[in-house]
């Protein structure tokens, strides 16, 4: 397999009323062609900002890329001209979002929005693009696609809208698809359908997926590899089975303890404490306040992501064998 | 967030004090009010008397710093005398606008149902009438006095206030503390005026400020057309009277116009400032 996307030491800063804060710090992660990389963490940990950085869509101002590089098939994206990024977006790297209810433009028909995506990147006649849009809608499982294509977003259910978003995202056969919590806003039954669809699409189109979620259960279903994020950093990275069976970082352990099982509705359980605000991060480990294994050194030093075999983690307790 | 516990009004006041345009507005407005109220103490000119040759240029004769009008009346004296009626009519009209508008909007928003339908249909009806034209008709059919003008402006301006009040009431009446008040058997009248209205106050205060500005412009327009009380000096009237001679003398129309502009401008800066003070989220933008 070949690395299709390579993020290296990426940092993103935001200007807030507390001054400049580093929302992403030293994030390095790679994506192989055709695989699914799970990006896991609680809200505000930097998952979505990583995605936006890859898309070249970090809102500027207040945000800006502070350091690092993002390479797509070897091509550097950080300093790439805007027009080049525009050509890549939608064509090579596509994205679907958390809120299908508001992610489609309410004043255009579903068909118009897919046709636009197709015609932006491919030399194709309008009529052919329309036929293709309908075929895509059929493919993502929208019944009576030809009629539904003329509908406006408000006439469709949430699940249907997310299917439309997926059809739009894959319309130009991208090589990378970023799915940012694609099912959070949907019913549980619909969630499973959407993940099944994503899996099928991945097989058929050979697209690599970055799946952003806070739900370790989803990871166990979907992901090949996992990167766990906390407070703007990656704190653990390994194959999905590895992470699920042998989690190392205390934070990851906490997340896995929250996967519901048949006997125990653990989704109601939570890791105690809250993610510290980015402007209030001290010198030490960002997780220290919530960690049962914390000691004085954890307060002083911020651990780096240290590989142990194929399994990387950033925890002093693990490194010292205290855990 | 600020940790110290302050009442929203105190927080708004602090925010207001940090808002330079708003403070400037307040200062200009106070200056204008002071000039119209106490100007005669410092400046002994008569606005109605012909005191000099017509169309004396400004800054040529030290007794008449802004020159004289087409009859030879002192413009500075006119500005001082004309401010009072303009401001008074503006204030009274705005007050009337708020009273009618809040009453309509509060009842419609609180009771809903057919009360809402009927009251809002009446509001829509008044919005169909071009306000200035209707005010002019009222003023001419009845006698052209300051009181008539203030009433006429109030009668034509309230629909917007009513809509705003109604929207606020619709929003607030669903909140828990209103439900709680109802649950303990508080009477409707008390809920409307003592529970909901104080919480709807911020947008209404802003709207009231802007209404004062609009009312001043209305009064100026009516006086400009010569439909006001011909015996009371006002800024609009000064412009209207000197209108025929603008190509001979620019100053008799320019200064009263500037006075109107400055007044409304400062009122509107003040309104924006109050608005920003009550909406900290917008302030951060």
């Amino acid at each position, binding site marked *: 397999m070949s690395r299709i996307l390579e993020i290296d030491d990426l940092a993103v800063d935001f200007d807030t009323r507390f001054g400049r804060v580093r929302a992403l710090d030293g994030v390095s992660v790679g994506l192989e062609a055709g695989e699914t990389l799970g990006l896991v963490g609680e809200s505000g940990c930097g998952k979505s900002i990583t995605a936006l950085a890859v*898309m070249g*869509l970090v809102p500027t*101002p207040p945000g800006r890329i502070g350091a690092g590089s993002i390479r797509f098939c070897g091509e550097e994206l950080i300093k790439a001209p805007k027009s080049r990024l*525009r*050509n890549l*977006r*939608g064509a090579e790297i*596509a*994205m679907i*979002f958390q*809120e299908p209810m*508001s*992610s*489609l*433009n*309410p*004043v255009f028909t579903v068909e118009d929005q897919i046709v*636009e*995506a197709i015609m*932006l*990147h491919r030399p194709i006649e309008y009529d052919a693009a329309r036929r293709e849009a309908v075929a895509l809608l059929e493919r993502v499982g929208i019944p009576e696609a030809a009629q539904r294509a003329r509908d*406006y977003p*408000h006439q469709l259910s949430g699940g249907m809208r997310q299917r439309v978003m997926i059809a*739009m995202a894959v319309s130009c056969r991208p090589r990378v698809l970023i799915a940012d919590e694609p099912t959070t806003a949907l019913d549980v039954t619909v969630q499973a359908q959407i993940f099944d669809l994503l899996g099928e699409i991945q097989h058929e189109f050979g697209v690599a997926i970055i799946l952003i979620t806070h739900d370790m259960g989803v990871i166990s279903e979907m992901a090949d590899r996992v990167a766990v994020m906390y407070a703007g950093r990656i704190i653990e990275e390994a194959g999905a089975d590895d992470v699920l069976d042998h989690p190392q970082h205390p934070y990851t352990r906490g997340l896995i303890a929250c996967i519901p099982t048949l006997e125990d509705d653990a989704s109601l359980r939570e890791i105690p404490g809250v993610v510290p605000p980015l402007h209030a991060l001290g010198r030490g480990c960002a997780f220290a306040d919530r960690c049962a294994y914390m000691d004085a050194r954890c307060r002083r030093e911020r651990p780096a992501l240290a590989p142990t075999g194929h399994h990387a983690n950033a925890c002093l307790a693990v490194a010292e064998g205290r855990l | 967030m600020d940790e110290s516990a302050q009442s929203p009004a105190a927080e708004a006041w602090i925010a207001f004090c940090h808002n330079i345009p708003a403070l400037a507005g307040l200062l200009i407005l106070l200056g204008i009010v002071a000039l119209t109220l106490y100007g005669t103490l410092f400046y002994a000119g008569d606005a109605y008397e012909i005191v000099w040759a017509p169309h004396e240029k400004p800054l040529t004769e030290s007794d008449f710093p802004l020159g004289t009008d087409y009859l030879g009346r002192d413009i500075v004296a006119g500005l001082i005398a004309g401010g009072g009626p303009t401001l008074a009519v503006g204030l009274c009209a705005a007050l009337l606008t708020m009273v009618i508008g809040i009453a309509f909007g509060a009842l419609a928003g609180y009771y809903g149902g057919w009360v809402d339908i009927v009251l809002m249909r009446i509001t829509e*009806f008044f*919005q*169909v*009438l*071009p*306000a*200035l*034209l*209707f005010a*002019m*008709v009222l003023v*001419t*059919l*009845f006698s052209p006095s300051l009181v008539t003008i203030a009433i006429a402006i109030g009668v034509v301006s309230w629909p917007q206030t009513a809509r705003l009040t109604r929207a606020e009431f619709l929003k607030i009446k669903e909140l828990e503390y209103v439900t709680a008040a109802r649950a303990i058997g508080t009477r409707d009248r008390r809920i409307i005026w003592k529970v909901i209205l104080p919480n709807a106050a911020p947008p209404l205060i802003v709207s009231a400020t802007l209404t004062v*500005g609009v009312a001043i*412009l209305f009064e*100026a*327009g009516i006086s*400009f*057309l*010569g*439909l006001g009380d011909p015996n009371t000096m006002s800024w609009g009237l000064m*412009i209207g009277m000197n*209108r025929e001679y*603008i*190509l001979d003398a*620019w100053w008799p*129309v320019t200064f009263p*116009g500037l006075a*109107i*502009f400055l007044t*409304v*401008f400062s*009122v*509107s*800066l003040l309104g924006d400032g109050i608005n920003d003070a009550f909406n900290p989220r917008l302030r951060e933008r």
Partner: protein
Amino acid sequence: MSGSYLIKRLLWGVLLMAGVVVLNFLLIRLAPGDAALVIAGEMGGASEEMLASIRKEYGLDRPLMVQLGLYLADMARLDFGQSFYFNQPVTGLIAQRVGATILLVIVAQLLAIFIGVVLGVLAARNPGGPMSAFVSVFATIGYAVPVFWTGIMLIILFASVLPIFPVEGMQSVKLREAGIIVKSLDILHHLVLPAFTLAVIYLAQYARLSRASMLEVLGSDYIRTARAKGASEASVLFKHALRNAALPILTVAGLQFGNLISGALLVETVFNWPGMGRLAFDSILRRDHPTILGVLFFSAAMVVVANLLTDLAYRFADPRLRGRT
């Protein structure tokens, strides 16, 4: 769009106009003094015979409800009686002038919306930038300037300093006999200053409104989707964002029509524009009440029609409202 909705709106419009007629009737009754004198107008030089004929025509000696019925019947035939100052039927007087007012109001409205929206969109692109600051300041100034004074200042400027636009009237006398194209251009030339004067206030408001509306829309999820598709910045701003931001602008544009007509009244007076506003002013000064009430009726009718059109446009522009009643 459903037909029943349209019919409902039309019926409501007719009802509103009936309301205006009743209000007119009440105004004449409530005004102090003899109703016949009020109708004739104090400047009409009403003779005893004239007053008698008015009393007969309006049935002033009959019960109030009968009088109202007679009045409503007259209005339904668009018969507003005789103007005593102009000595002509009021309907004819208005018919001669309503076109000039509609031209002025619509051109000013379009001018204001177009320039205002462009300014607002440019400002919204960079909320902390100089364009944004300009729009805020300009909007506050535009709101505070009395429209008639703007007109006068422009007249002073363009009559003496920079005589490139006519400052008075609607047509040049020497071009009265010219061809239709020359005449149209001449009218447009005369229209520049009045339309601009009237547009300035609303221009400022539309700029501020479209800035706020665009800022809100630009933060929405579907704009992020459009960018993620690879749409160009121009397409994001003017296609995806503006189509949505235009909805509140449209609402306000509809509500502004009444104010525009009020403003036109002042602007027409300042620039001697031969429209209904000028007619209203002349007839108010002469206390020519039938004409005043006729103008009030027609102005209200224009607002009703404008509101109806806005409503239909809104339902067309927002698919979420289509098909609802």
